[in-house]
Protein backbone atom coordinates (compact mmCIF):
# COMPACT_ATOMS: atom_id res chain seq x y z
CA UNK A 1 0.00 0.00 0.00
CA UNK A 2 1.27 3.48 -0.79
CA UNK A 3 1.79 5.96 2.02
CA UNK A 4 -1.06 7.98 0.63
CA UNK A 5 -3.46 5.08 1.03
CA UNK A 6 -2.08 4.11 4.41
CA UNK A 7 -2.63 7.60 5.74
CA UNK A 8 -6.08 8.06 4.22
CA UNK A 9 -7.17 4.63 5.43
CA UNK A 10 -5.92 5.32 8.89
CA UNK A 11 -7.86 8.60 8.94
CA UNK A 12 -11.00 6.88 7.68
CA UNK A 13 -10.69 4.21 10.31
CA UNK A 14 -10.00 6.62 13.15
CA UNK A 15 -12.04 9.70 12.51
CA UNK A 16 -15.40 10.03 14.21
CA UNK A 17 -18.31 10.77 11.93
CA UNK A 18 -19.18 14.33 12.56
CA UNK A 19 -22.43 15.96 13.32
CA UNK A 20 -20.90 19.43 13.16
CA UNK A 21 -21.71 21.37 10.01
CA UNK A 22 -19.26 23.82 8.53
CA UNK A 23 -20.24 27.08 10.29
CA UNK A 24 -21.00 30.36 8.59
CA UNK A 25 -17.85 32.48 8.68
CA UNK A 26 -19.67 35.69 7.92
CA UNK A 27 -20.43 36.55 11.53
CA UNK A 28 -21.47 40.00 12.61
CA UNK A 29 -18.28 41.94 13.06
CA UNK A 30 -16.65 45.28 13.58
CA UNK A 31 -17.40 48.14 11.17
CA UNK A 32 -15.54 51.41 11.24
CA UNK A 33 -17.22 54.73 10.79
CA UNK A 34 -14.04 56.14 9.29
CA UNK A 35 -12.22 53.33 7.50
CA UNK A 36 -9.51 55.63 6.16
CA UNK A 37 -8.60 56.75 9.63
CA UNK A 38 -8.70 53.25 11.10
CA UNK A 39 -6.47 51.96 8.31
CA UNK A 40 -3.96 54.78 8.77
CA UNK A 41 -3.71 54.43 12.55
CA UNK A 42 -3.44 50.65 12.38
CA UNK A 43 -0.77 50.78 9.70
CA UNK A 44 1.10 53.36 11.77
CA UNK A 45 1.00 51.02 14.77
CA UNK A 46 2.72 48.31 12.75
CA UNK A 47 5.39 50.64 11.41
CA UNK A 48 3.96 51.76 8.06
CA UNK A 49 2.54 54.98 6.64
CA UNK A 50 -0.61 55.79 4.72
CA UNK A 51 -0.82 58.81 2.43
CA UNK A 52 -3.74 60.11 0.36
CA UNK A 53 -2.55 61.62 -2.86
CA UNK A 54 -4.37 64.78 -3.86
CA UNK A 55 -3.86 66.59 -7.12
CA UNK A 56 -0.45 65.10 -7.68
CA UNK A 57 0.78 62.18 -9.71
CA UNK A 58 2.54 59.15 -8.29
CA UNK A 59 5.61 60.25 -10.26
CA UNK A 60 5.61 63.60 -8.49
CA UNK A 61 5.07 61.97 -5.12
CA UNK A 62 8.04 59.67 -5.62
CA UNK A 63 10.23 62.48 -6.89
CA UNK A 64 9.44 64.52 -3.79
CA UNK A 65 9.58 61.82 -1.16
CA UNK A 66 12.23 59.43 -2.35
CA UNK A 67 15.25 61.44 -3.31
CA UNK A 68 18.64 60.10 -4.28
CA UNK A 69 17.63 56.49 -4.74
CA UNK A 70 19.62 54.59 -7.32
CA UNK A 71 17.33 51.75 -8.25
CA UNK A 72 13.58 52.15 -8.59
CA UNK A 73 11.43 49.40 -10.03
CA UNK A 74 7.72 49.42 -10.63
CA UNK A 75 4.88 47.09 -11.47
CA UNK A 76 2.40 49.96 -11.30
CA UNK A 77 1.76 50.83 -14.89
CA UNK A 78 0.98 54.52 -14.45
CA UNK A 79 4.36 55.14 -12.88
CA UNK A 80 7.16 56.30 -15.16
CA UNK A 81 10.11 56.66 -12.86
CA UNK A 82 11.54 53.14 -13.01
CA UNK A 83 15.26 52.80 -13.49
CA UNK A 84 14.93 49.23 -14.70
CA UNK A 85 12.26 46.83 -15.83
CA UNK A 86 11.90 44.00 -13.33
CA UNK A 87 10.05 41.76 -15.75
CA UNK A 88 12.95 41.89 -18.18
CA UNK A 89 15.31 40.36 -15.65
CA UNK A 90 16.35 36.78 -16.15
CA UNK A 91 16.38 35.88 -12.46
CA UNK A 92 14.79 37.48 -9.39
CA UNK A 93 18.21 37.63 -7.74
CA UNK A 94 19.00 40.68 -9.84
CA UNK A 95 16.42 42.63 -7.87
CA UNK A 96 18.65 42.56 -4.84
CA UNK A 97 19.72 46.17 -5.30
CA UNK A 98 16.23 47.66 -5.50
CA UNK A 99 15.92 50.74 -3.28
CA UNK A 100 12.26 51.35 -4.00
CA UNK A 101 9.55 49.18 -5.50
CA UNK A 102 6.35 50.88 -6.59
CA UNK A 103 3.73 48.18 -6.71
CA UNK A 104 0.00 47.91 -7.12
CA UNK A 105 -2.22 46.84 -4.22
CA UNK A 106 -5.71 45.51 -4.90
CA UNK A 107 -7.41 46.69 -1.72
CA UNK A 108 -6.68 47.64 1.87
CA UNK A 109 -8.09 46.27 5.14
CA UNK A 110 -8.93 48.78 7.86
CA UNK A 111 -8.82 46.41 10.85
CA UNK A 112 -5.21 45.35 10.36
CA UNK A 113 -3.45 47.75 8.02
CA UNK A 114 -2.91 45.07 5.41
CA UNK A 115 -2.96 45.46 1.63
CA UNK A 116 -3.75 42.59 -0.72
CA UNK A 117 -1.11 42.29 -3.40
CA UNK A 118 -1.70 39.94 -6.32
CA UNK A 119 -0.44 40.78 -9.73
CA UNK A 120 -0.17 38.03 -12.34
CA UNK A 121 1.68 40.45 -14.61
CA UNK A 122 4.60 40.70 -12.19
CA UNK A 123 7.09 37.99 -13.11
CA UNK A 124 9.18 38.12 -9.95
CA UNK A 125 7.34 38.02 -6.65
CA UNK A 126 10.72 38.34 -4.94
CA UNK A 127 10.43 42.05 -5.70
CA UNK A 128 7.99 42.49 -2.81
CA UNK A 129 10.53 41.11 -0.37
CA UNK A 130 13.90 42.17 -1.77
CA UNK A 131 13.17 45.86 -2.16
CA UNK A 132 14.34 48.02 0.74
CA UNK A 133 11.30 50.28 0.45
CA UNK A 134 7.82 49.52 -0.78
CA UNK A 135 5.32 52.02 -2.09
CA UNK A 136 1.99 50.27 -2.53
CA UNK A 137 -0.52 52.16 -4.65
CA UNK A 138 -4.17 51.45 -3.86
CA UNK A 139 -7.44 52.89 -5.14
CA UNK A 140 -8.80 55.15 -2.40
CA UNK A 141 -12.25 53.60 -2.70
CA UNK A 142 -10.92 50.14 -2.00
CA UNK A 143 -10.72 49.96 1.76
CA UNK A 144 -12.78 47.27 3.46
CA UNK A 145 -13.53 46.88 7.16
CA UNK A 146 -12.21 43.45 7.95
CA UNK A 147 -10.93 40.13 6.66
CA UNK A 148 -14.51 38.95 6.21
CA UNK A 149 -14.98 41.43 3.36
CA UNK A 150 -11.42 40.88 2.20
CA UNK A 151 -11.79 37.20 1.44
CA UNK A 152 -14.92 37.85 -0.59
CA UNK A 153 -12.68 39.78 -2.98
CA UNK A 154 -10.03 37.07 -3.31
CA UNK A 155 -10.16 34.47 -5.99
CA UNK A 156 -7.84 31.55 -6.53
CA UNK A 157 -9.75 29.63 -9.15
CA UNK A 158 -6.52 29.87 -11.14
CA UNK A 159 -2.95 29.21 -10.11
CA UNK A 160 -1.11 32.23 -8.78
CA UNK A 161 0.35 33.98 -5.81
CA UNK A 162 -1.02 36.65 -3.55
CA UNK A 163 -0.06 38.12 -0.21
CA UNK A 164 -1.34 40.45 2.45
CA UNK A 165 1.34 42.93 3.44
CA UNK A 166 0.83 44.82 6.68
CA UNK A 167 3.64 47.29 7.20
CA UNK A 168 7.38 46.69 6.98
CA UNK A 169 8.98 43.38 7.92
CA UNK A 170 9.77 43.12 11.60
CA UNK A 171 11.03 40.90 14.36
CA UNK A 172 11.05 40.86 18.13
CA UNK A 173 13.20 37.78 18.49
CA UNK A 174 15.90 39.47 20.53
CA UNK A 175 14.54 40.12 24.01
CA UNK A 176 11.14 41.13 22.68
CA UNK A 177 12.56 44.40 21.36
CA UNK A 178 10.66 45.35 18.22
CA UNK A 179 13.01 45.92 15.30
CA UNK A 180 11.59 47.16 12.01
CA UNK A 181 13.28 45.68 8.98
CA UNK A 182 13.95 41.97 9.27
CA UNK A 183 14.29 40.26 5.88
CA UNK A 184 11.74 42.13 3.81
CA UNK A 185 11.12 45.83 3.29
CA UNK A 186 12.37 48.27 5.93
CA UNK A 187 9.87 50.96 4.93
CA UNK A 188 6.33 50.57 3.66
CA UNK A 189 4.06 53.35 2.49
CA UNK A 190 0.54 52.81 1.21
CA UNK A 191 -0.45 55.49 -1.26
CA UNK A 192 -4.15 56.00 -1.95
CA UNK A 193 -4.99 57.49 -5.32
Amino acid sequence: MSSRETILNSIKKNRPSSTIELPNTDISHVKYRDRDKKFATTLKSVGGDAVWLEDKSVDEFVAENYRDLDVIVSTYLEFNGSTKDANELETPHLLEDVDLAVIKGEFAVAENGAVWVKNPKNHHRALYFLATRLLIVVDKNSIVDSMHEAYKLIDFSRAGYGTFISGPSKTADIEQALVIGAHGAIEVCVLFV
Partner: protein
Amino acid sequence: MGHPKKASKFVANSKRMHWHDKALWFVRERRDLATHQLDEWEELRRVASEIKTHTMDRLDYYLEEFEKNATQKGLHIHWARDAKEHNEIVLNLLLTHGAKRVVKSKSMLTEECGLNPFLEKNGIEIVDTDLGERIVQLRKEAPSHIVLPAIHLKKEEVGKTFEEFLNTQKDNCDPTYLTREARKHLREKFLTADASITGVNFAIAQTGGVVVCTNEGNADLGASLPKLHIASMGIEKVIPRLEELSVFTRLLARSATGQPITTYTSHFHAPIEGGELHIVIVDNGRSDTLSNSDFKESLNCIRCGACLNTCPVYRRSGGHSYGYTIPGPIGSTLGASRDLQANRTLPFACTLCASCSNVCPSKIKLHNQLYRHRQNVVKAGLLGAKKRAILKVSSWVMKHPLLLDFVGLVVRKVVPILPRSIVYSKANIWGRGREVPKFPKKSFKELYKERKK
Protein backbone atom coordinates in the same frame (compact mmCIF):
# COMPACT_ATOMS: atom_id res chain seq x y z
CA MET B 1 15.05 13.35 32.83
CA GLY B 2 11.50 14.54 33.41
CA HIS B 3 10.07 18.02 33.55
CA PRO B 4 10.61 18.64 37.30
CA LYS B 5 14.34 17.89 37.11
CA LYS B 6 14.92 20.05 34.06
CA ALA B 7 12.72 22.81 35.42
CA SER B 8 14.67 22.86 38.67
CA LYS B 9 17.75 23.90 36.70
CA PHE B 10 15.82 26.77 35.16
CA VAL B 11 14.35 28.00 38.42
CA ALA B 12 17.71 27.80 40.19
CA ASN B 13 18.40 31.24 38.74
CA SER B 14 15.44 33.02 40.20
CA LYS B 15 16.24 36.43 38.69
CA ARG B 16 16.29 34.95 35.26
CA MET B 17 13.17 32.96 35.90
CA HIS B 18 11.29 36.13 36.82
CA TRP B 19 12.65 37.89 33.77
CA HIS B 20 11.37 35.05 31.55
CA ASP B 21 8.03 35.05 33.34
CA LYS B 22 7.61 38.79 32.78
CA ALA B 23 8.66 38.69 29.13
CA LEU B 24 5.94 36.16 28.35
CA TRP B 25 3.33 37.83 30.48
CA PHE B 26 3.96 40.98 28.49
CA VAL B 27 3.07 39.06 25.31
CA ARG B 28 -0.04 37.70 26.97
CA GLU B 29 -1.10 41.24 27.91
CA ARG B 30 -0.63 42.40 24.35
CA ARG B 31 -2.88 39.59 23.27
CA ASP B 32 -5.54 40.74 25.72
CA LEU B 33 -5.37 44.30 24.46
CA ALA B 34 -5.83 43.15 20.87
CA THR B 35 -8.67 40.76 21.57
CA HIS B 36 -10.60 43.21 23.69
CA GLN B 37 -10.86 45.51 20.70
CA LEU B 38 -13.16 43.08 18.94
CA ASP B 39 -16.67 42.50 20.26
CA GLU B 40 -16.87 39.39 18.12
CA TRP B 41 -13.79 37.72 19.62
CA GLU B 42 -15.64 34.92 21.36
CA GLU B 43 -17.76 34.38 18.28
CA LEU B 44 -14.60 34.04 16.20
CA ARG B 45 -13.28 31.41 18.60
CA ARG B 46 -16.52 29.48 18.43
CA VAL B 47 -16.49 29.48 14.64
CA ALA B 48 -12.81 28.50 14.51
CA SER B 49 -13.40 25.60 16.82
CA GLU B 50 -16.36 24.40 14.76
CA ILE B 51 -14.46 24.71 11.48
CA LYS B 52 -11.60 22.67 12.87
CA THR B 53 -13.82 20.01 14.41
CA HIS B 54 -15.84 19.71 11.23
CA THR B 55 -12.69 19.41 9.13
CA MET B 56 -11.01 16.82 11.35
CA ASP B 57 -14.13 14.67 11.20
CA ARG B 58 -13.95 14.64 7.40
CA LEU B 59 -10.22 14.88 7.13
CA ASP B 60 -9.78 12.22 4.44
CA TYR B 61 -12.26 14.02 2.19
CA TYR B 62 -10.64 17.43 2.59
CA LEU B 63 -7.14 16.09 2.09
CA GLU B 64 -8.16 14.39 -1.13
CA GLU B 65 -9.86 17.58 -2.30
CA PHE B 66 -6.73 19.51 -1.48
CA GLU B 67 -4.57 17.05 -3.38
CA LYS B 68 -6.84 17.12 -6.41
CA ASN B 69 -7.00 20.91 -6.60
CA ALA B 70 -3.34 21.46 -5.86
CA THR B 71 -2.34 18.96 -8.52
CA GLN B 72 -4.59 20.72 -10.98
CA LYS B 73 -2.71 23.93 -10.29
CA GLY B 74 0.58 22.25 -11.03
CA LEU B 75 1.76 21.69 -7.45
CA HIS B 76 3.28 18.36 -6.47
CA ILE B 77 1.86 16.45 -3.50
CA HIS B 78 3.76 13.86 -1.46
CA TRP B 79 2.53 11.78 1.45
CA ALA B 80 4.69 10.76 4.39
CA ARG B 81 3.59 8.27 7.03
CA ASP B 82 6.24 9.29 9.51
CA ALA B 83 9.23 11.53 10.18
CA LYS B 84 11.63 9.20 8.43
CA GLU B 85 9.63 9.11 5.23
CA HIS B 86 9.19 12.89 5.33
CA ASN B 87 12.93 13.43 5.62
CA GLU B 88 13.65 11.00 2.82
CA ILE B 89 11.16 12.66 0.49
CA VAL B 90 12.75 16.05 1.18
CA LEU B 91 16.28 14.75 0.70
CA ASN B 92 15.32 13.01 -2.49
CA LEU B 93 13.78 16.18 -3.91
CA LEU B 94 16.89 18.15 -3.03
CA LEU B 95 19.20 15.59 -4.57
CA THR B 96 17.26 15.24 -7.81
CA HIS B 97 17.34 19.04 -8.14
CA GLY B 98 21.03 19.17 -7.35
CA ALA B 99 20.34 21.38 -4.34
CA LYS B 100 23.15 21.68 -1.80
CA ARG B 101 22.25 24.87 0.03
CA VAL B 102 18.82 25.21 1.56
CA VAL B 103 17.10 28.05 3.43
CA LYS B 104 14.32 27.10 5.80
CA SER B 105 11.67 29.18 7.51
CA LYS B 106 9.94 28.30 10.72
CA SER B 107 8.28 24.93 10.80
CA MET B 108 7.67 23.01 13.99
CA LEU B 109 6.93 19.96 11.88
CA THR B 110 10.46 19.80 10.49
CA GLU B 111 11.70 20.15 14.09
CA GLU B 112 9.46 17.25 15.04
CA CYS B 113 10.90 15.20 12.18
CA GLY B 114 14.51 16.08 13.00
CA LEU B 115 15.01 17.29 9.44
CA ASN B 116 18.04 19.51 10.01
CA PRO B 117 20.41 16.90 11.44
CA PHE B 118 19.25 14.41 8.82
CA LEU B 119 19.98 16.73 5.92
CA GLU B 120 23.29 17.81 7.40
CA LYS B 121 24.33 14.20 7.69
CA ASN B 122 23.63 13.90 4.01
CA GLY B 123 25.83 16.80 3.04
CA ILE B 124 23.19 19.51 2.69
CA GLU B 125 23.72 22.96 4.21
CA ILE B 126 20.49 23.96 5.89
CA VAL B 127 20.05 27.46 7.28
CA ASP B 128 17.16 28.50 9.50
CA THR B 129 16.18 31.99 8.41
CA ASP B 130 13.78 33.11 11.11
CA LEU B 131 15.96 35.31 13.32
CA GLY B 132 15.12 33.50 16.54
CA GLU B 133 15.60 30.12 14.92
CA ARG B 134 18.91 31.18 13.40
CA ILE B 135 20.10 32.24 16.83
CA VAL B 136 19.26 28.89 18.41
CA GLN B 137 20.60 27.01 15.39
CA LEU B 138 23.98 28.73 15.74
CA ARG B 139 23.96 27.89 19.44
CA LYS B 140 23.01 24.28 18.69
CA GLU B 141 19.90 24.58 20.83
CA ALA B 142 16.28 23.73 20.18
CA PRO B 143 13.65 26.49 19.95
CA SER B 144 12.18 27.08 23.40
CA HIS B 145 8.87 28.49 22.12
CA ILE B 146 6.83 27.81 18.99
CA VAL B 147 6.48 31.48 18.01
CA LEU B 148 9.39 33.09 19.88
CA PRO B 149 12.17 30.49 19.48
CA ALA B 150 14.84 32.46 21.37
CA ILE B 151 12.68 33.88 24.15
CA HIS B 152 14.92 32.16 26.73
CA LEU B 153 17.98 34.16 25.70
CA LYS B 154 19.23 37.54 26.84
CA LYS B 155 20.48 39.99 24.27
CA GLU B 156 23.99 39.72 25.69
CA GLU B 157 23.97 36.01 24.89
CA VAL B 158 22.74 36.68 21.37
CA GLY B 159 25.49 39.29 21.00
CA LYS B 160 28.12 36.78 22.05
CA THR B 161 26.77 34.18 19.62
CA PHE B 162 26.84 36.68 16.76
CA GLU B 163 30.34 37.77 17.71
CA GLU B 164 31.46 34.20 17.33
CA PHE B 165 29.63 33.33 14.12
CA LEU B 166 28.90 36.60 12.32
CA ASN B 167 31.90 38.64 13.43
CA THR B 168 29.85 41.39 14.95
CA GLN B 169 31.35 44.15 17.11
CA LYS B 170 32.57 43.06 20.49
CA ASP B 171 30.03 43.51 23.29
CA ASN B 172 27.52 45.20 21.03
CA CYS B 173 24.18 43.67 21.92
CA ASP B 174 21.83 46.33 20.62
CA PRO B 175 18.85 44.44 19.14
CA THR B 176 18.62 46.70 16.08
CA TYR B 177 22.30 46.34 15.33
CA LEU B 178 22.20 42.57 15.75
CA THR B 179 19.07 42.26 13.62
CA ARG B 180 20.68 44.28 10.81
CA GLU B 181 23.78 42.10 10.92
CA ALA B 182 21.61 38.99 10.76
CA ARG B 183 19.77 40.52 7.81
CA LYS B 184 23.03 40.92 5.92
CA HIS B 185 24.24 37.47 6.83
CA LEU B 186 20.97 35.82 5.83
CA ARG B 187 20.52 37.88 2.63
CA GLU B 188 23.64 36.22 1.41
CA LYS B 189 22.17 32.81 2.27
CA PHE B 190 18.89 33.61 0.51
CA LEU B 191 20.63 34.75 -2.64
CA THR B 192 22.80 31.67 -2.90
CA ALA B 193 20.23 29.05 -1.88
CA ASP B 194 19.34 26.25 -4.26
CA ALA B 195 16.07 25.44 -2.57
CA SER B 196 13.77 26.60 0.22
CA ILE B 197 11.73 24.76 2.80
CA THR B 198 8.80 26.34 4.60
CA GLY B 199 6.09 25.20 6.95
CA VAL B 200 2.40 25.66 6.26
CA ASN B 201 -0.11 27.51 8.41
CA PHE B 202 -3.17 26.58 6.38
CA ALA B 203 -3.81 24.40 3.35
CA ILE B 204 -7.00 25.21 1.46
CA ALA B 205 -8.87 22.20 0.11
CA GLN B 206 -11.12 24.17 -2.23
CA THR B 207 -8.34 26.06 -4.01
CA GLY B 208 -5.40 23.69 -3.58
CA GLY B 209 -2.97 26.24 -2.18
CA VAL B 210 -1.09 26.82 1.05
CA VAL B 211 -0.83 29.87 3.28
CA VAL B 212 2.26 30.84 5.25
CA CYS B 213 2.26 33.63 7.84
CA THR B 214 5.45 35.42 8.96
CA ASN B 215 6.54 38.79 10.27
CA GLU B 216 10.08 38.74 9.00
CA GLY B 217 9.37 37.90 5.38
CA ASN B 218 11.82 35.03 5.51
CA ALA B 219 9.43 32.39 4.22
CA ASP B 220 8.51 34.58 1.26
CA LEU B 221 12.01 35.59 0.41
CA GLY B 222 13.15 31.98 0.54
CA ALA B 223 10.23 30.75 -1.51
CA SER B 224 10.59 33.39 -4.20
CA LEU B 225 14.27 33.10 -5.09
CA PRO B 226 15.39 29.49 -5.71
CA LYS B 227 13.46 27.36 -8.18
CA LEU B 228 12.55 24.65 -5.71
CA HIS B 229 10.16 25.29 -2.82
CA ILE B 230 9.21 22.44 -0.50
CA ALA B 231 6.41 23.06 2.00
CA SER B 232 5.88 20.54 4.81
CA MET B 233 2.53 20.23 6.54
CA GLY B 234 0.85 17.98 9.07
CA ILE B 235 -2.41 16.39 7.92
CA GLU B 236 -4.31 18.62 10.33
CA LYS B 237 -3.40 21.86 8.53
CA VAL B 238 -6.10 21.60 5.91
CA ILE B 239 -9.18 23.86 5.99
CA PRO B 240 -12.18 23.63 3.65
CA ARG B 241 -12.31 26.94 1.79
CA LEU B 242 -10.67 30.34 1.37
CA GLU B 243 -13.33 32.08 3.43
CA GLU B 244 -12.36 30.16 6.57
CA LEU B 245 -9.16 32.16 6.43
CA SER B 246 -11.14 35.27 7.31
CA VAL B 247 -11.61 33.71 10.73
CA PHE B 248 -8.13 32.25 11.21
CA THR B 249 -6.17 35.29 10.02
CA ARG B 250 -8.11 37.39 12.50
CA LEU B 251 -7.37 35.02 15.36
CA LEU B 252 -3.80 33.89 14.74
CA ALA B 253 -1.59 36.96 15.18
CA ARG B 254 -3.82 38.56 17.80
CA SER B 255 -3.54 35.42 19.90
CA ALA B 256 0.17 35.02 19.23
CA THR B 257 1.63 38.49 19.79
CA GLY B 258 -1.27 40.91 19.89
CA GLN B 259 -0.64 42.11 16.33
CA PRO B 260 -3.76 42.58 14.20
CA ILE B 261 -2.24 40.31 11.52
CA THR B 262 1.22 39.01 10.64
CA THR B 263 3.21 41.29 8.33
CA TYR B 264 2.97 38.78 5.49
CA THR B 265 0.14 36.33 4.87
CA SER B 266 1.17 34.63 1.67
CA HIS B 267 -1.05 32.44 -0.47
CA PHE B 268 0.94 30.04 -2.61
CA HIS B 269 -1.10 28.59 -5.46
CA ALA B 270 1.79 28.36 -7.90
CA PRO B 271 5.57 28.07 -7.84
CA ILE B 272 7.70 30.97 -9.02
CA GLU B 273 8.13 31.24 -12.79
CA GLY B 274 9.99 28.21 -14.03
CA GLY B 275 10.05 26.72 -10.54
CA GLU B 276 8.43 23.84 -8.68
CA LEU B 277 6.35 23.77 -5.52
CA HIS B 278 6.24 20.48 -3.64
CA ILE B 279 4.02 19.88 -0.63
CA VAL B 280 4.73 17.04 1.77
CA ILE B 281 1.72 15.94 3.83
CA VAL B 282 2.85 14.23 7.02
CA ASP B 283 0.93 11.97 9.38
CA ASN B 284 3.53 10.95 11.98
CA GLY B 285 1.02 9.68 14.53
CA ARG B 286 -1.65 12.30 13.99
CA SER B 287 -4.26 10.00 12.49
CA ASP B 288 -4.02 7.77 15.56
CA THR B 289 -4.91 10.71 17.79
CA LEU B 290 -8.08 11.22 15.72
CA SER B 291 -9.56 8.03 17.12
CA ASN B 292 -9.25 9.17 20.72
CA SER B 293 -12.23 11.32 21.60
CA ASP B 294 -10.42 12.56 24.72
CA PHE B 295 -7.50 14.00 22.78
CA LYS B 296 -8.49 14.51 19.14
CA GLU B 297 -9.27 18.16 19.82
CA SER B 298 -5.53 18.77 20.17
CA LEU B 299 -5.35 18.50 16.37
CA ASN B 300 -7.35 21.74 16.16
CA CYS B 301 -4.31 23.73 17.24
CA ILE B 302 -3.18 26.58 14.97
CA ARG B 303 0.18 26.96 16.79
CA CYS B 304 -0.32 30.51 18.00
CA GLY B 305 1.61 30.00 21.22
CA ALA B 306 -0.96 31.78 23.41
CA CYS B 307 -1.26 28.82 25.76
CA LEU B 308 2.50 28.93 26.37
CA ASN B 309 2.52 32.64 27.09
CA THR B 310 -0.23 32.38 29.63
CA CYS B 311 0.89 29.17 31.36
CA PRO B 312 2.30 29.82 34.85
CA VAL B 313 4.39 26.66 34.60
CA TYR B 314 5.79 27.41 31.16
CA ARG B 315 6.63 30.98 32.08
CA ARG B 316 8.57 29.84 35.11
CA SER B 317 10.22 26.71 33.75
CA GLY B 318 11.14 27.63 30.19
CA GLY B 319 10.57 25.71 26.97
CA HIS B 320 13.57 23.45 27.26
CA SER B 321 12.33 21.91 30.50
CA TYR B 322 9.63 20.01 28.62
CA GLY B 323 12.01 17.96 26.54
CA TYR B 324 9.45 17.73 23.75
CA THR B 325 9.51 19.56 20.40
CA ILE B 326 6.51 21.64 21.35
CA PRO B 327 6.58 22.93 24.91
CA GLY B 328 3.78 24.32 27.06
CA PRO B 329 0.23 23.04 27.51
CA ILE B 330 -0.33 22.04 23.88
CA GLY B 331 3.03 20.27 23.71
CA SER B 332 2.32 18.42 26.93
CA THR B 333 -0.88 16.95 25.59
CA LEU B 334 0.53 16.21 22.13
CA GLY B 335 3.64 14.66 23.65
CA ALA B 336 1.63 12.50 26.04
CA SER B 337 -0.59 11.32 23.20
CA ARG B 338 2.45 10.46 21.13
CA ASP B 339 4.41 8.59 23.79
CA LEU B 340 2.98 8.47 27.29
CA GLN B 341 5.96 6.64 28.76
CA ALA B 342 8.57 9.08 27.49
CA ASN B 343 6.50 12.18 28.29
CA ARG B 344 4.85 10.97 31.49
CA THR B 345 5.89 13.99 33.55
CA LEU B 346 4.42 16.54 31.13
CA PRO B 347 0.73 16.27 32.10
CA PHE B 348 1.84 17.17 35.62
CA ALA B 349 3.62 20.33 34.47
CA CYS B 350 0.30 22.05 34.97
CA THR B 351 -1.59 23.74 37.81
CA LEU B 352 -4.98 22.98 36.21
CA CYS B 353 -5.70 26.71 36.27
CA ALA B 354 -7.28 26.43 32.81
CA SER B 355 -5.85 29.71 31.60
CA CYS B 356 -4.63 27.93 28.45
CA SER B 357 -8.13 26.78 27.57
CA ASN B 358 -9.43 30.29 28.07
CA VAL B 359 -7.02 31.90 25.63
CA CYS B 360 -6.89 29.18 22.97
CA PRO B 361 -8.32 30.58 19.72
CA SER B 362 -9.49 27.08 18.73
CA LYS B 363 -11.08 26.56 22.14
CA ILE B 364 -9.15 23.39 22.85
CA LYS B 365 -9.86 22.31 26.42
CA LEU B 366 -6.19 21.82 27.12
CA HIS B 367 -6.44 21.50 30.89
CA ASN B 368 -9.06 18.75 30.56
CA GLN B 369 -6.72 16.85 28.29
CA LEU B 370 -3.83 17.15 30.71
CA TYR B 371 -6.07 16.00 33.55
CA ARG B 372 -7.06 12.92 31.54
CA HIS B 373 -3.48 12.20 30.59
CA ARG B 374 -2.62 12.19 34.30
CA GLN B 375 -5.18 9.52 34.93
CA ASN B 376 -3.72 7.49 32.10
CA VAL B 377 -0.25 7.89 33.53
CA VAL B 378 -1.50 6.47 36.84
CA LYS B 379 -3.42 3.66 35.13
CA ALA B 380 -0.37 2.71 33.11
CA GLY B 381 1.65 2.49 36.32
CA LEU B 382 4.03 5.23 35.17
CA LEU B 383 3.82 7.39 38.25
CA GLY B 384 6.95 7.70 40.40
CA ALA B 385 7.02 5.55 43.58
CA LYS B 386 6.97 8.52 45.96
CA LYS B 387 3.99 10.20 44.33
CA ARG B 388 2.18 6.90 44.12
CA ALA B 389 2.66 6.26 47.82
CA ILE B 390 1.53 9.76 48.76
CA LEU B 391 -1.59 9.46 46.63
CA LYS B 392 -2.40 6.04 48.06
CA VAL B 393 -2.11 7.21 51.63
CA SER B 394 -4.04 10.42 51.06
CA SER B 395 -6.86 8.72 49.21
CA TRP B 396 -7.12 6.17 52.03
CA VAL B 397 -7.21 8.91 54.64
CA MET B 398 -9.78 10.89 52.70
CA LYS B 399 -12.07 7.93 52.45
CA HIS B 400 -12.27 7.76 56.26
CA PRO B 401 -13.85 10.96 57.66
CA LEU B 402 -13.00 10.31 61.30
CA LEU B 403 -9.42 9.57 60.45
CA LEU B 404 -9.24 12.69 58.27
CA ASP B 405 -10.48 14.84 61.16
CA PHE B 406 -7.95 13.29 63.45
CA VAL B 407 -5.03 13.72 61.08
CA GLY B 408 -6.06 17.31 60.49
CA LEU B 409 -6.13 17.99 64.21
CA VAL B 410 -2.73 16.45 64.78
CA VAL B 411 -1.18 18.35 61.89
CA ARG B 412 -2.63 21.67 63.09
CA LYS B 413 -1.30 21.12 66.58
CA VAL B 414 2.03 19.50 65.85
CA VAL B 415 3.46 21.18 62.75
CA PRO B 416 3.60 24.70 64.22
CA ILE B 417 5.71 23.51 67.15
CA LEU B 418 8.11 21.40 65.11
CA PRO B 419 11.54 22.88 64.40
CA ARG B 420 12.07 24.15 60.83
CA SER B 421 14.71 21.55 60.16
CA ILE B 422 12.09 18.83 60.45
CA VAL B 423 9.22 20.52 58.59
CA TYR B 424 11.49 21.51 55.73
CA SER B 425 13.55 18.35 55.78
CA LYS B 426 14.69 16.75 52.54
CA ALA B 427 11.64 14.50 52.46
CA ASN B 428 9.33 17.48 52.03
CA ILE B 429 9.78 18.25 48.35
CA TRP B 430 6.78 20.53 48.47
CA GLY B 431 8.57 22.74 50.99
CA ARG B 432 11.40 23.54 48.60
CA GLY B 433 10.87 27.16 47.71
CA ARG B 434 7.51 27.27 49.49
CA GLU B 435 6.45 28.28 52.97
CA VAL B 436 3.86 26.36 54.91
CA PRO B 437 1.02 28.79 55.60
CA LYS B 438 -0.01 29.64 59.15
CA PHE B 439 -2.46 27.01 60.34
CA PRO B 440 -5.86 28.12 61.62
CA LYS B 441 -6.87 27.07 65.13
CA LYS B 442 -9.98 25.27 63.95
CA SER B 443 -10.84 23.19 60.93
CA PHE B 444 -13.45 24.24 58.42
CA LYS B 445 -15.78 21.56 59.71
CA GLU B 446 -15.52 22.86 63.26
CA LEU B 447 -16.15 26.43 62.16
CA TYR B 448 -19.11 25.36 60.09
CA LYS B 449 -20.68 23.52 63.00
CA GLU B 450 -20.21 26.51 65.33
CA ARG B 451 -21.78 28.87 62.82
CA LYS B 452 -24.79 26.65 62.42
CA LYS B 453 -25.52 26.65 66.12
